[in-house]
Every structure is written in C-alpha cells, then in structure tokens.
C-alpha cells in the first residue's frame, strides 16, 4: 500500500497541475469549473489516501478515492467520476491482488456507471469518448505490464479525445451554452488523458 500511496499521491500532484488547461477547455464550452474540479479532487484524493490503513483493500481504497474526489467540487465531472470509482470499488469487492481481468472489470463498471448516470452516448463529446476506447485498449493489452497497459490506454485515450474536437456537445452545461469556441477537444476527455499521463509519469519501477 505504501508504494501505491506514493505513486497515486505523486500522480495526483501532476494531475492537479492540469488545472489551468482544463479551466480553459471547459470555459470554451461550459462554465470553466472543470480545472477546479480536477485540482481540488486530486488534492482530496491525496490527503484521503494518507489517512488509510496500510492493509486497506483495493475496493476500500477505490471507495475512499471516489468519495474524496466527489468532495472536491460538486460538479458533474466529480459526481460522475466518483460514481465510476464507487462502481469499480463494488466490482473489486473481496479482490486483494487485482489481476488484469479485475482491472478491466473495474474500468468497465466505472464506464458503464458513467454512461448510465450521465445518459451520454459515444459521440456526445464527453469523457466517455476517451474512456471507452482506452478500456478497449486495456482489454487487448492483456498479459503485459502495468506500464504497457497504461501506454496502450494513453494512445487510445488521446486519439479518442482528439476526435471530440469535431463533436457537438449534447450533455452537461456545454450543451446549452451552445457553440464551442474554436476547434477544441472536450475538457472531460482531456482530463482523463491527463490522469492516465500522470499515472504513467509517476509510476514506480516494479518492486
């Protein structure tokens, strides 16, 4: 757990640093609160992890992370992310050392919950347009190392996020704010890419 805590803690610092970029992206199409959602949520996750016992289960850690993320800012993205993390937590109930299949199951549960709760479909210019292809990449990356899974997910997520530039928002505040300034990608999709990148950049060499 200690290594995990360090990893995630450092990743959260890096994730939080995306604040400015995400504020600008969300402001172009929505209300500009996404940057704060990410920085406050990331800080909350880091400090919540610090309070966890060393022998905490992955399920409990995910639940704590989810609730901490929700607490950062009562935004759509935070609530969707938290609901996803809580679903992943339920999917990993009783699992102490998650296998590749467990991780896939966790991501799938999160993705399904986000889709159901948010009511968005692929192509609606949301985080799902990066998340769903990244899970597909994770699934086909079976058998490799965490670092390789992450690398594959990042490639797919980036491509998915890139494509959102051409999509029209149908969900969230962005939908009624109307036209998106410029040819920019969806903030939520980019946030997810930045999360994966932060996890990759701070990953410890296997112990």
């Amino acid at each position, binding site marked *: 757990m200690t290594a995990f805590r360090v990893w995630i803690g450092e990743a959260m610092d890096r994730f939080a640093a995306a604040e400015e970029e995400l504020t600008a992206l969300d402001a172009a199409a929505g209300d500009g609160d996404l940057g704060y959602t990410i920085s406050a949520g990331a800080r909350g996750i880091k400090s919540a992890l610090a309070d966890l016992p060393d022998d905490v289960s992955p399920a409990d850690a995910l639940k704590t992370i989810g609730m901490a993320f929700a607490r950062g800012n*009562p*935004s*759509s993205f935070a609530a*969707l992310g938290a*609901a996803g993390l*809580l679903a992943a937590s339920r999917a990993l109930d009783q699992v102490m050392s998650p296998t590749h299949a467990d991780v896939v199951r966790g991501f799938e549960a999160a993705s399904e919950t986000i889709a159901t709760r948010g009511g968005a479909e692929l192509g609606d210019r949301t985080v799902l347009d990066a998340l769903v292809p990244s899970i597909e990449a994770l699934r086909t990356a079976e058998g490799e190392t965490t670092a390789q899974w992450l690398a594959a997910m990042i490639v797919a997520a980036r491509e998915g996020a890139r494509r959102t530039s051409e999509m029209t928002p149908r969900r969230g*505040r962005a939908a009624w704010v109307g036209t998106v300034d410029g040819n920019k990608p969806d903030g939520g999709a980019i946030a997810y890419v930045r999360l994966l990148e932060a996890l990759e950049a701070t990953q410890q060499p296997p112990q």
Partner: protein
Amino acid sequence: MNSPEAFADEVVEGILAAYPESLRSAGAANRALVRADAPTPGKVGIVTGGGSGHLPVFLGYVGSGLATAVAIGNVFSAQSSDAALAAIEAADAGAGVLCLYGNYTGDRLNFDLACDLAQANGIRTTSVRVADDVASAPADRASERRGVAGLFFAYKCVGAAAERGDDLDKVTAVARRVVESVRSMGVGLAPSILPTSGKPTFSLGENEMEIGIGIHGEPGQRRGELLSADEVADQLLDAVLPELEVSAESRIAVLVNGLGATPPEELYVVYRRLHQRLEKMDVTVHRAYVGEYATSLEMAGLSVSVLRLDEELKQLLDAPAHSPFFSQRDLR
C-alpha cells in the same frame, strides 16, 4: 454583497439567524438545512436541493406541509453529494426519503451519489425530478427538460402527502403525478449577474426579450422583440396548455412567477390576461399564485406554470403549509 466567495454561506447564515424556530443546520458546513421540528417518526422525509440564487427555491420550501430538508450548492451550481447525504440523513424518520428536485445533470448526479451512500447506510430513497420547462426540450425528450417554477407545485402537493402520512411509495407516486401534470415557460427581460464573475448571464438588446428562458439564463426557444404583457401571457399560456390537455371541464392551478427584478405589478397584469383567456375556455382556475416563487438573482422576467388538478391534487394543494418563505392556511 460582501465577498463573492462567501455569498452563498452568508445567505444561509442570515436565514438561520432569521428563522431559528423554523430551520436548523443539518451539518455539511450549513450546506444542509432541516425543519427545526424534524424528524417526525413515521413520516416520509422529502429532501430537495440545488444551487443558490433562486430564493425561495430551494430552501424556502422547507417547512410543514412542504419539504423536510435541503442541500445547498453555490450560486447556480449543484449541491454537493455530502450536503445531499446530510440532508437525507436529517430528513429520514425511518419511513424513507424522497429526493425531489429540479432536473439538472449536476444536481441529479450528486443526489444519485448521495442516495448510493444513504442506501448503503440503510435509508430507503426514491428520486423524482421536476422537469416542467417546456422550452428546454420538445415533448418527445421531456426527460431532458429542466425544472423551473413548477417545483413550487411539487413541494406543495408532495409535502402535503407526506404530512398526512402517506408512505414512501405513495408520496413518490404523488410526486410523479405532479411532474406529469405541470408545465411552465418563461420570458427573460434582463440577465442575472453572477456574483463570482460580476458578469451578466446573457445580453439582450434594448427592445428584446428571450422567450423560453431558464432560471440560470439558459437561452430558450428564440429571441424576439419586446411584447406587451397580454402578448407575453398569450404566448406562455399557448406554450404550456397543449401538453396538459386542458379542456372546458378542467380544473387547474396557475402560477405567475417573477424571476426577481420584475415588479409584482407586472405579474398581475399578466395574470389578468391569463384569467380572461382561461375564462373564455371555460377552464376553472381553482387557485392562482402570483409572486416570486423561483428567482434568478437580478434577472428580470417571469414564467407561467399550470398544474392540472385531479381531486387528490386539489386536496393536497389546498392543505396548509408553512415555511419562512411560503405560508398558506388550510383552504380545504
């Protein structure tokens, strides 16, 4: 205003100071409030919530014969899931809790999260979202519509059902029936100013109005030239009536709601016309409500809501209700 950051909290502090006999904090740093006399053992709790800046929506409808508890967000922002959970816990008297609020994604996502957590703690919850604004989506996508002043009718009828002792399923069914039976539409004449940014939520020309405006300044169906009060009344009535299938035998309640900066006098000029029109159609206006029931800071404009009544909704509407913001005698 003092500081924009402290605005929502200072409003709540002022309200708690003004009405200690009616409301108390339910935790979450005063972002959850509950009726001072809650919980009443055996009674279903009704929890509402959403962003600040719409008084009396939402917290003004916490009271006897109305909602039990409320979760309060920042200006025009969703309530947190923490506040929603605290409100649910405070409202629960063992008979379960209905979350009754406006249909906004952020509000819903945070309420759903709170319900997940409340249910894990053994509290039974149901959720009904008011989606009365016909301008926000066509009838075939009614579930995407936003909740506006029709919330008032929901609190009034559903609160009365809980007060008379209906169980959670019955209270939830009443809430669904109100949602099916209420439609609203508004016009905007001047924007609200967001306290944080100091910026108006939209801009209008001197002689323009936004038809179908939402309570956050969301644009509506179209922007048009400024109309007379009678023309506004006609357009709004013609927009809300068709889906309700109101006919000569129908009995309805009407709400003319001011968005904040429009003088009450104007609302009565509009009601005058609605009444004439409805009289000509032989529709019975069982009760008329005119005033500021759901506002949007300094936004100017108004909305018209119609609730189609059946015998039960009529009884529930006429039941007494008391909160610091809305008070009605027993009219049954």
